[in-house]
């Protein structure tokens, strides 16, 4: 139980600043696409007998790079993502069915299996979270400037394409560590919902990221508690709690006006 709580908090903290960027850059669907590609990663990892974390990381990264390079070539980004996300998911599901002999707990990857988190898993989650935080914090100002205006960033000597790439990389890493906690289908929720909740309660980007981290962690703990008492699936329970926070935040900001 403690391991599960630690895993949830670690993931929430890593997801918070990235979730904010996902909201600010309108990349919610991009997060989805990358996450769906993760199922393909799971299948490939099992087939090649490499660690699932590595497989997921590789496919999420590949997906990010493909979207990155295909964007601006005649298709609207949401069309492109729609094609890629669901193709990757479908190929992944088909690939999993070929894996005879290996019993794959598909549900575990789709919805997460936070209660089965092992100590090595925890090490990966916290190591990954630390790497993401370090990367994002160090480049915070550049990332933020590029997000607000790529041209403004360029004129200040920042390369917005590079910053975009860094975000893609960090996002792939987040998805790879979050798959165990909330599963492929709900990773986007963990990215977007706490950030959206924090939005109506903050006046600056830093506050928003910080608040998203706190809200995400509380959601993880609340979801675990809910799941423990009511015997509900844990990943979805976490997202439910996050959604309730979002509703509350709407009410708070409405009451303030």
């Amino acid at each position, binding site marked *: 139980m403690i391991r599960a709580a630690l895993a949830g908090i670690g993931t929430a903290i890593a997801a918070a600043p990235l979730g904010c960027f996902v909201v*600010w850059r309108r990349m919610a669907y991009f997060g989805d696409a990358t996450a769906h590609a993760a199922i393909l990663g799971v299948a490939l990892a099992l087939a090649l007998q490499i660690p699932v974390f590595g497989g997921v990381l590789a496919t999420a990264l590949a997906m990010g790079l493909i979207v990155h390079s295909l964007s601006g070539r005649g298709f609207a980004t949401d069309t492109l993502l729609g094609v890629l996300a669901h193709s990757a998911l479908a190929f992944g599901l088909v690939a999993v069915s070929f894996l005879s002999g290996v019993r794959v707990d598909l549900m575990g990857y789709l919805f997460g299996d936070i209660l089965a988190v092992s100590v090595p898993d925890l090490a990966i989650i916290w190591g990954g979270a630390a790497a993401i935080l370090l990367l994002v914090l160090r480049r915070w*100002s550049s990332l933020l400037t590029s997000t607000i205006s790529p041209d*403004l960033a*360029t*004129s*200040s000597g920042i390369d917005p394409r590079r910053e975009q790439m860094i975000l893609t990389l960090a996002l792939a890493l987040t998805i790879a560590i979050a798959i165990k906690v909330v599963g492929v289908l709900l990773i986007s929720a963990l990215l977007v919902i706490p950030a959206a909740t924090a939005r109506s309660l903050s006046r600056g*980007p830093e506050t*928003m990221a910080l608040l998203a981290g706190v809200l995400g962690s509380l959601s993880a703990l609340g979801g675990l508690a809910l799941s423990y008492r009511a015997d509900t699936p844990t990943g979805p329970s976490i997202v439910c709690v996050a959604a309730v926070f979002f509703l509350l935040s709407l009410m708070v900001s409405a009451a303030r006006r």
Partner: protein
Amino acid sequence: MTDTSPLIEAEGLEVKRGAHVALRNVDFSIRPGEIVTIVGPNGSGKSTLLRALIGAIQPSAGTIRRKPGLRIGYVPQSLHVEPGLPLTVARFLKLPTRHSKKAIKDALEYAGLPDLHDRQMSVLSGGQFQRVLLARALLEKPDILMLDEPTQGLDQRGSAEFYRQIEAVRRELNCAVLMVSHELHVVMSASDRVICLNGHVCCSGTPEIVATAPEYRALFGTGTKGALALYRHTHDHAHDHDHPQLDHHHEDHAI
């Protein structure tokens, strides 16, 4: 300023947007302290040239040389701040470089917006937004200020004020100014040099030369000439008292 080598220099610049050639064979240079204005009809590649010069667009041919360590203060044509991103004016001014509280306060005073410190960027009016953009550019202590249609959305009085401020800025910081505009009579009279652009450089030189050039007339007609003369007169008058050194610039860069 003793070093008068160009801040930015472009040679044989060609920029393609898809299959369309937006700019071809453009030579350009700007020296420290110069005010250069780019005029041209819609779709003539004015913004494209500016964005190529800051490095936001890769040219398909030609070269761009920026002086090493050049500090650019860029004021974009418009800027959309995503509603999902909470951002106060003070925070925006610190992007990407941190500045002291005092510097921020001074910059806002100077821009005439002392009360906007904690205001959200998303609720500013068009005029306030432009002034904040300018304040941010100036905080970077630029060698060159680049403005893309800076008075779009401002009324006549607002834009006249804005240009007066630009001139004041140039006097104080002694930075070069490169502007894109279609408000010909106001802008041209404040410039040392005007470049008339329509996919390529049609003509360039002092405002007087450009305003009488047949290429310019062909693009804009002669309708603005009267207004230009009028403004020119009052402007020259101020020149003689405040900063006679401007005249010497005119001589220097007449082509």
